[in-house]
């Protein structure tokens, strides 16, 4: 069942989600997209679709209201049974995120808490739309903030855009072309000769024509990069230990992230990657030390470690931002899970991050301090850290960030001190 660690990753198998592994029911929602940019710095955006429970990922164990409020979903203090891994005496890491501790200790991981986009309703679809369109309302822009950022710095070389998966996520949609590249096709590939014949009859089609032309180009490039050399798989146990359960997003993250890291590290490769993973919508039986959320978090942590491994020395030039559309209710619901909420955590990791700390204006968990009496209250706009990241990695100035990338956001300053100077 395991990938052969000495062979190069086969064509179209970046995710290693070879078809033999995936049961019929089990194609997990992990997607990758890439874009190029005229820089040596790297930026990876990880979108956790479905709303991550920030109070479970990074529990505020020292908050006096935490244990009561969370009830059966409360972790213990460090060293206790079901205890968190201490970070700073106030907050701890969910034990399932243990693989991230070395990054924290190396000051390459910063955690932002009680953070939210400007969205204050509770629809996944609108929440994700707004997270990606970069405005303050759903459908507030037809394109994504990362694409607008690329347009600002003049990244328009379509040859190096790659999207792994069917189509680009909204955050990368827009005027700067990106292409796509999906791993693990079950069908034999049509020959280059046939694609040339097809291109002739697609020429007049405004949609199919450009899509095919770009697909042919990027397939050529990605084949070249991915067949260039072998790489040992990191964390073999975490990615492959799954013997009899269905293949989940959690299991696919590490191989996907490692492949993404390799592409980003290549001198001819892209500089920007977007990695999307589902599995966070824990309405029922969320679990504590084990269960749905612990599995998903372990997958995320292993994915981050695999990404670092894939990037190699390029990690020192990298920022990874982990974001989700909103948080979940502060208290458990009636079915051992949590419903859609408001503020949550975000993470920044990488060699360019000034980490080892938690950045938050902690709102507290007393009922009166909760947003609408039910959710962790937002005290930081997610655009603040994202602006800091884009200022560092793409060298976009604050006025442009406030006008073009995140329109109408002059009051949101780029967050100070989370990027190494």
């Amino acid at each position: 069942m395991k990938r052969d660690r000495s062979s190069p990753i086969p064509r179209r198998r970046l995710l290693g989600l070879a078809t033999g592994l995936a049961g019929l029911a089990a194609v997990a929602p992990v997607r990758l997209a890439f874009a190029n940019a005229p820089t040596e710095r790297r930026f990876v955006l990880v979108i956790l679709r479905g709303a991550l429970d920030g109070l479970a990922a990074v529990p505020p164990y020292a908050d006096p209201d935490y244990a009561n409020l969370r009830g059966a979903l409360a972790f213990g203090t460090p060293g206790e049974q079901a205890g968190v891994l201490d970070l700073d005496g106030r907050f701890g890491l969910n034990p399932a995120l243990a693989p991230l501790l070395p990054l924290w200790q190396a000051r390459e991981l910063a955690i932002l808490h009680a953070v939210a986009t400007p969205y204050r309703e509770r629809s996944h679809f609108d929440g994700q739309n707004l997270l990606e369109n970069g405005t303050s309302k759903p459908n507030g822009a037809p394109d994504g903030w990362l694409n607008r950022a690329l347009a600002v710095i003049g990244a328009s070389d379509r040859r190096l855009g790659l999207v792994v998966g069917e189509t680009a996520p909204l955050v990368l949609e827009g005027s700067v072309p990106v292409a796509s590249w999906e791993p693990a096709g079950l069908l034999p590939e049509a020959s280059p000769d046939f694609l040339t014949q097809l291109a002739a009859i697609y020429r007049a089609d405004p949609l199919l024509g450009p899509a095919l032309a770009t697909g042919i180009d990027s397939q050529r490039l990605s084949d070249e990069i991915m067949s260039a050399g072998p790489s040992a798989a990191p964390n073999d146990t975490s990615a492959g230990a799954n013997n009899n359960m269905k293949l989940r997003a959690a299991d696919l993250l590490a191989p996907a992230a490692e492949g993404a890291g390799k592409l980003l590290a290549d001198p001819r490769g892209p500089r920007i990657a977007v990695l999307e993973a589902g599995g966070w919508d824990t309405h029922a039986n969320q679990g504590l030390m084990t269960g749905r959320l612990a599995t998903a978090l372990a997958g995320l942590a292993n994915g981050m470690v695999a990404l670092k491994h894939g990037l190699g020395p390029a990690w020192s030039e990298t920022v990874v931002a982990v974001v989700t559309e909103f948080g979940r209710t502060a208290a458990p619901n009636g079915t051992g899970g949590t419903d859609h909420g408001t503020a949550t955590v975000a993470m920044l990791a990488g060699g360019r991050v000034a980490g080892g700390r938690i950045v938050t204006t902690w709102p507290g968990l007393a009922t009166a301090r909760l947003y609408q009496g039910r959710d962790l209250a937002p005290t930081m706009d997610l655009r603040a850290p994202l602006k800091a990241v884009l200022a560092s990695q793409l060298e976009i100035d604050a006025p442009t960030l406030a006008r073009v990338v995140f329109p109408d956001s002059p009051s949101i300053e780029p967050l100070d001190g989370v990027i190494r100077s």
Partner: protein
Amino acid sequence: MASIAGFQAVARFGLGARAGEIEEASAAPDDWVLAQLQDGAWPSALSGMPSGQSLAEDLLKAFNRGAQAVQENLKGAARQQYIDEIGARTKAQVESQAPFKERLVAFWSNHFTVSIAKPALIGLAGAFEREAIRPHVTGRFVDMLLAVLRHPAMLLYLDNAQSIGPGSRAGELRNRGLNENLGREVLELHTLGVDGGYRQEDVQAFARMLTGWSIGGKRGGTPGAFHFYPQLHEPGAKTLLGRQYPEGGEAEVEQAAADLALHPATARHLALKLARHFIADEPPADIVGRLADRYLETGGALGAMAAFIAREPDAWHMPLTKVKTPNELMVSTLRVLGRTPDPKAIIASLKSLGQIPFDAPSPAGWPDRAEDWVGPEAVLRRADFAMAVAQRLPANLQPRQLLDVALGPAASDVTRQAVERAPAPADGFALVLAAPEFQRR
């Protein structure tokens, strides 16, 4: 004589041409489409399938025996049921004499998505479409909505089966409570739409009305069938969209569903989606408005909505605005060839094309715009699929014949020339199946 309008009838409103179908539809294209709405025949491919109740009962029995038994069910009997359902459903679509009706089944099934992305649904998704969707596609929307809300598949998919009124007897005893997942998605996705003017209080009110709507088992009802549990139902009046509903047990949802079904926001939401599906990714606002009016005038009659679309001149004027979904591409390919392969091969190909049956990424269902299905990679996969099919076609068939059956007078000169000049028969067949006129509808 085959006409362009005949091609449009079978491609835009149907599932692609079977041999001779373009000619058949060309005599009176709109009548050919409309007559299908009167077709009450149950597809023979779907007869003899087990009921959702019996499938849910098997699953619940496994739940009661523990995690191991659940895994055995999901990987064994339930997975086999899924494969059988895909085989039967595809056969029904490929052989259908009323493909417009099959399109409506697929449309409403996607509107009320249950997805096997939640593994427990793998054995139930097909039964859901057969039982909650198919009987109602030319009936009233509210009847379909209530059939959906009472189906074990939806009750499991959006967690309502375990939602308990916090003030109910069981809620007070067991300290378990409300799950608002189904309540929210009904308002956001199934009826009013996300901009339909409801608020968080409405979500909670509808979720409270839905408490007690669950599945029969040890504590009452027929195992695996819908059952209303009064002891789980949140007592008291509820206020939804400004209207107060007195405590009414199971009847609360029936009354609220009737009101939601005829809400103007629901009419707009459904009209936009249906017009988007059949006419264009961004359908003319005027058509959407008139379609919504028609829906409200007829008390939410889905057959009247379908007939309105088929009679709408703009639906016939616009040239091939829509791109086929992978399933539509698969089915139209099989119809033109007149064959239905092994279900595992169908599922494998659809996986490669990016649309595993009943595996929509979220309760919102599969997207319905060209941009969602046409990326550079998706186009390459479609080319691969065309070639894989082409290489299996018999040597006594000519690419030109396939072109005439599939596209008739709609084939462009460029496509026709490329097919005539193809270096080998397989290339010619694949060009027909990958041609823009065949990828679109």
